[in-house]
């Protein structure tokens, strides 16, 4: 499947991209993260501590064990600091 991945805040800075398109057969968000980590050091560094990372699938906040079937957009970002 084809996924659009978005990165925000320090994840965007560490990876050096605001968004990218990936081809993947990852079943869950955690599987996708493992694939990304294996790619390059900057991904491994960014996803070193998942406690510091949040994920949204198609703009809904979810967990790392969430399935990716039918999903088009994945976003990774730190805990939010609005208000």
């Amino acid at each position, binding site marked *: 499947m084809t996924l659009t991945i*978005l990165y*925000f*805040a*320090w994840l965007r800075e560490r990876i050096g991209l605001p968004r990218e398109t990936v081809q993947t057969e990852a079943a869950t968000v955690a599987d996708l993260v493992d694939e990304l980590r294996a790619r390059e050091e900057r991904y491994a560094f960014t996803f070193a501590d998942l406690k510091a990372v949040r994920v*949204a699938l198609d*703009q*809904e*906040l979810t967990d790392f064990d969430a399935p990716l079937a039918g999903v088009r957009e994945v*976003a990774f*970002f*730190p*805990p*939010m*600091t*609005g*208000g």
Partner: protein
Amino acid sequence: MTIRVQAQPFDYGAESNAFARSSDGAGAIVTFCGVVRDNDGTLRGMEIEHYPGMTERALSTIEAEARSRWSLSDALIIHRHGALNPGEMIMMVATASRHRADAFAAAEFLMDYLKSRAPFWKKERTATGEGWVEAREADEDALKRW
């Protein structure tokens, strides 16, 4: 019910007055605004990043939740993104209800939830460099009271 996510400044007084005027019969209006705080006098400015699309959805969900919990005749959320200077207003909420208890509680609920559930991230620029503001555990804990 109005949600606005914008780069440009807003006029807190004008927004508050317009909200109060359009809330005929509400009886109670609560407004709150958040301002860029300079803790020790070293802040040069702030940059607020957000996730266009998800931001509006998350704020709509939070507002709908507030309306389901309290009797509100109207609600307003304005949140800025982009570059802000110390002392500038970041965001405001306003709630209207027949009774003040609902208006106060709903405004606090909106604030607590938008701090931790709406996709905004603050980056501070100081005299010595820049850095992302870290989420506070207290902000996450604040959700548990609702």
